[in-house]
């Protein structure tokens, strides 16, 4: 292994045991996250099945342009993230820093676009409650409940991801990732980042595409 023995925590025998344990730990955590988001998706599918026409009408009111733009931004950020992990394996410190910065920038622009989209949604009275758009059928409120909850939860996860990546940039700049025996940290941050992307890949068709053709 490349890792230096000094950063092996005392409960582990060696660096490879530590790396394997950390990897399995993050995958287990992601399994938890799948069930967490899975409930929202399940609720969506159930109510879509019960009120297909109302959901289709509601879906047409989401902002397809901004949603698509955000999908492109996020998928691109996954690419730069994956490249950063590869560069770290090749010990190209500068490249890691640049790629991570680009990833962070893309993640932040996703949030920026989302804020614009949210404010437009609010002016179009798409926030469920007494002021909800009166021209939409009654149960499209359910669609927008799930829209707001799902995108907000996704946003919270993205913000956590940005915090993690910011720490990684600092560590990369100081040469503490691959060179310091902490490549696993970057690898796991990447895994989490891709998971947040995949959640969006599922949300995008459900919230922006389904029902538009009707």
């Amino acid at each position, binding site marked *: 292994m490349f890792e230096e023995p000094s950063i092996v*925590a*005392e*409960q*582990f*025998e060696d660096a490879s*045991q530590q790396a*394997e*344990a950390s990897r*399995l*730990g993050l995958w*287990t*955590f992601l*399994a*938890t*996250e799948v*069930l*967490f*988001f*899975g*409930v*929202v998706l*399940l*609720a969506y599918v*159930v*109510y879509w099945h*019960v*009120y297909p026409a109302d959901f289709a009408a509601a879906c047409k009111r989401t902002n397809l342009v901004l949603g698509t733009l955000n999908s492109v931004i996020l998928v691109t950020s996954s690419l730069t993230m994956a490249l950063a992990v590869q560069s770290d394996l090749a010990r190209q410190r500068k490249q890691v820093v640049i790629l991570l910065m680009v990833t962070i920038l893309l993640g932040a622009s996703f949030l920026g676009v989302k804020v614009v989209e949210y404010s437009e949604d609010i002016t179009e009275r798409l926030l*469920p*409650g007494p002021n909800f758009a009166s021209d939409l059928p*009654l*149960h499209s*409120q*359910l669609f927008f*409940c*799930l829209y707001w*909850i799902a995108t907000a*939860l996704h946003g919270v996860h993205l913000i956590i991801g940005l915090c993690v990546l910011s720490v990684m940039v600092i560590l990369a700049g100081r040469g503490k990732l691959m060179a310091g025996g902490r490549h696993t940290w970057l690898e796991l941050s990447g895994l989490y980042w891709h998971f947040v992307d995949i959640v969006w890949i599922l949300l995008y068709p459900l919230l922006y595409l389904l029902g538009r053709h009707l």
Partner: protein
Amino acid sequence: MSEAEPSYLSAGDTLGSWLLTTDHKRIGLLYLFSILFFFFIAACAAALMRLELLTPQGDLVFSETYNKLFTMHGVLMVWFFLIPSVPSVLGNFLVPLMVGARDLAFPRLNLLSWYLFVVGGFFVMHAIVIGGVDTGWTFYTPYSSAYSNSHVIQMALGIFIAGFSSILTGLNFIITIQKMRAPGLTWFRLPLFIWSMFATSIILVLATPVLAITLVLLSVERIWGVGIFDPKLGGDPVLFQHLFWFYSHPAVYIMILPGMGVVSEIIPCFARKKMFGYRFVAFSSMAIAMIGFLVWGHHMFVSSQSIYAGMVFSFLSFLVSIPSAIKVFNWTATLYRGSITFGAPMLYALGFIGLFVMGGMTGLFLASVAVDVHVHGTYFVVAHFHYIMVGGMVTAFMGGMHFWWPKITGRLYPPLMAQIAAALLFLGFNLTFFPQYILGYLGMPRRVHDYAPEFQIYNVLSTIGASVLGLAYLLPLIYLVWSLRYGKPSGANPWEATGLEWKTPSPPPKHNFNETPIVMEEAYNYPSNKDHGDPEHV
């Protein structure tokens, strides 16, 4: 590591050395103190309810107060005592010792999980102190989201936070058991306690997030008045029940599998015999964890779910009883021709088998759709799940505490007192809850504070039983604390038990083992068969 490493108890005695510890053994003790606190409060709520039910009239508390009492009792007992009882206390203490590791895989996450547990507990206690919650521990919508005038959000928030504590504990156990076993400790040489912890951890990790997000949805609905589960706004309250029980039925197995693990350690030790059918017992834990995810609908036979769903859930509920029965048969077969001694841990373990069989068999009554429609919402259900959770899990927890007390503290408790306490627990428990089966069958509904006069005799018996049970809980508290100061030193292995945890001094040094152990034999390699056990081979 030096030869004379001090024990984990004497490695620092400042408050900081406890509150900032990453030692799994100390964190286990932190959990022990916390859950005993919550147990005490929840038990007081139960005592008030049993006092109220002495007479048919509602004369001690208002019905509204009674609603808050059973909610508080349920929430605290389920999430703040039973779920963390064996996993977070004994599991934390024993999992690294039993697999021959120096600590859990992620010690800081382990400490974080205790803090999350305490913060969650704080919110729940806060909700109780400022006025309580009256929805029952099940939080059924739309009552909890639209109508209840009590502090549902604070309570839900507390449970949400404590849920992350469960998830982190489960995650830590899964990784530790998978990746940190000592050399030679293959899966089929693991103690069965570890198998049951592994199965429990899978449930903790996969079921808890579903409860977490369900409570988020409930809170969103309550705060903003939107209609996720409110039928007035197009939502479906039955969806809430599905989501709630998708967590809460597997949670029942979080509350019994660890107890089964404890019993599987005690019985071979006190029968001086190998566990009969080791692999069956190990796989039955996994089977319970898997099938346990598919039976939640049996809580909803009268909820308007489809009759076909009811039939499937009924069938699956019968199916999940098979692995549980396998365990009972194997424990019994282990006892057969064993050299049995009746130390206190063994009395608790035998009590567990009896009470668990009662609870399990009545579970089959409730899994039958027609019988369930008759006794749904009555004391029959209350008696059934108390036989599993109190008769099963609390008895096993007490048995485990008595079994590993010498390991945890290095002291022996007075054996006769402990045997008396174990016997009292068995008697008091049966006197409390057996009359409730009859009450339920005769039709007394649960969650009411006054009742028809013909039910009084059974309620009086139940309250007397609860007093005996209270004594059986109090007694160990006294002599176990007494033993800390006056108990004889136990030595490393007072029960002459197998297992790595007994091969290190009591109390264990901070890093558990002076050198990493190497495992050459199967679990429960008790000598009786060779020496004096089996008459056919003497």
